[in-house]
């Protein structure tokens, strides 16, 4: 549970189309001060009279805390269905109801380590803020971004500058190496002597990364994306089976016990079934 969560009517400060995405900035006041890479926000969509009753979750791309209670949160939004399309249609000056920051954040190592950041699609968003922090701690940061095509790689210039190396993969080969991020991972881990992987992207990708991380024996923190009804821990819809310190698998809420979790602890191959032995099954 993120103790800093609050609800606010926030103003859209800017909304720019970047490739397949919209880069959007919201004036959120104090909320920015508490936002960490990995955290997300939950936004009401559709406006008055909408049939969309649930909030939509978006990973925080960056948060900037200014003086006098002024602060901004930036998101990278893919216009996908009706909710996100509504959001990306907002213009500067429009108000949106936003709850945040929510969920867990990426764990920052106390020592300078060699980190590999892996993002799929808009999953790259939280990695740039993370990269800055890691660099500040003296870490080496390599990055791999993958997507179906070049338009879906989100990698702004200043973001690229913040990493030691950037590898891009696309399914259709329209940018970087043709293929998936998991195809290039093993080599990158070895070549750069990676200690820890931070990832964010579709569940299938996170599962694939976990497999490689386990094989190569590197730590792996991933930001998962389960369908969420509330984002604040009250609905129990966003659960997934995670093995605890005590070895017991429990159905944990990805909105408050995540989105950032230890990849190794997730029981990935549990689609549409409760894994055997799960607590309470």
């Amino acid at each position, binding site marked *: *549970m993120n103790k800093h969560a609050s609800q606010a009517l926030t103003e859209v400060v800017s909304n720019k189309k970047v490739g397949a995405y919209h880069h959007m900035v919201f004036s959120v006041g104090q909320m920015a001060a508490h936002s960490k890479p990995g955290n997300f926000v939950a936004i*009401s969509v559709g406006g008055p009279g909408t049939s*969309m*009753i*649930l909030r939509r979750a978006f990973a925080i791309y960056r948060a900037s805390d200014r003086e006098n209670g002024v602060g901004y949160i930036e998101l990278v939004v893919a216009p996908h269905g009706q909710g996100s399309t509504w959001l990306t249609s907002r213009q500067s000056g429009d108000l949106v109801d936003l709850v945040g920051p929510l969920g867990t954040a990426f764990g920052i190592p106390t020592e300078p380590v060699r980190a590999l950041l892996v993002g799929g699609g808009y999953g790259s968003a939280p990695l740039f803020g993370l990269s800055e922090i890691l660099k500040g701690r003296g870490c080496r940061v390599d990055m791999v971004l993958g997507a179906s095509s070049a338009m879906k790689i989100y990698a702004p210039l200043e973001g690229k500058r913040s990493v030691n190396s950037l590898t891009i993969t696309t399914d259709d080969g329209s940018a970087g190496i043709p293929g998936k991020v998991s195809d290039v991972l093993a080599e990158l881990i070895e070549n750069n002597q990676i200690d820890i992987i931070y990832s964010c992207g579709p569940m299938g990708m996170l599962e694939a990364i976990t497999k490689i991380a386990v094989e190569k024996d590197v730590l792996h923190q991933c930001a998962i994306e389960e369908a969420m009804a*509330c984002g604040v821990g009250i*609905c129990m*819809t966003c659960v997934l089976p995670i093995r605890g310190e005590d070895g017991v698998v429990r159905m944990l809420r990805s909105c408050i016990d995540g989105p950032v979790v230890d990849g190794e602890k997730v029981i990935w191959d549990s689609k*549409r079934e409760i894994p055997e032995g799960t*607590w309470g099954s």
Partner: protein
Amino acid sequence: MSFDYTTSLGAAKFENPIFTASGCASSGKELSQFFDLRELGALVTKSIMIKPRSGRATPRMAETASGMLNSIGLQGPGIDIFLEKDIPWLQEQGVSTVVSIAGESVDDYGILARKMRSVTGVKALEVNISCPNVENRGMVFACNPVTARAAIEAVRRNIGGELPIIAKLSPDVTNIVEIAEEVVAAGADALALINTVLGMVIDTNTMRPKLAGKTGGLSGPAIRPVAVRAIYQVHAALPHVSILGMGGVTNGREALELILAGASAVSIGTANFGNPTATMLVKSELQELLIAKGFNSLQEAVGYAHRAESQ
């Protein structure tokens, strides 16, 4: 003149009529960062069962037009851990609490009631009988007058003392008045109306039911007309039995609809997901509306839509 916003369900008294709905506020902690839980008429806990429950597999949720489907499957820690951890926390905070229980057999209901006997500081017991009865081919207790009655009787026999029993009914029945009459005869002090409506969404990408559990419970504004109808029908048949109304309420005007139909209090469920402070909004809007309409107390408005056409 001061407005009287208090209400009661059976012998239980509440400062105001706005509750959370079972399963839509978890154990309370999560909402407490958005508002002071003591401002609630009551927090109704998620339905607790005897043993720990993993709940159903995911996907457990599908958004629908002005509603959502869920099939949580009553995930929870079981009554013992619940009484050890969750209840003390709520009591420390001074939260007006209604505990919801759910069983898989008539005996379960009896056992849960007995466990609740010694618990102090709880205002009432909500008995969720919209659960599959493992002893009767998974038939939902609330969908059959005989099993609905048996579950409530088991609670009544075992609860002892004066903890009021609120029987929570399912709208998925041919005749909800019949079920209401049975559970009242069996000893329910009040009724909670309505639980979710059975529904299904098919994911047109995978071309299978979207939820892992196939069917799920429909909640939210989509079902409000069903809730209003059920409350109106039951209040007409049993005017002296108080009703905790729920189903799709998101604002004060909608809560008023349920009150006028016959509810003495209103639980807010799905609306919390879209707006964590929904209860506080409903609470203040409803009070303003009642005052604006000239009521001196909430009680005056309960069931007001039933008055004769001439009035």
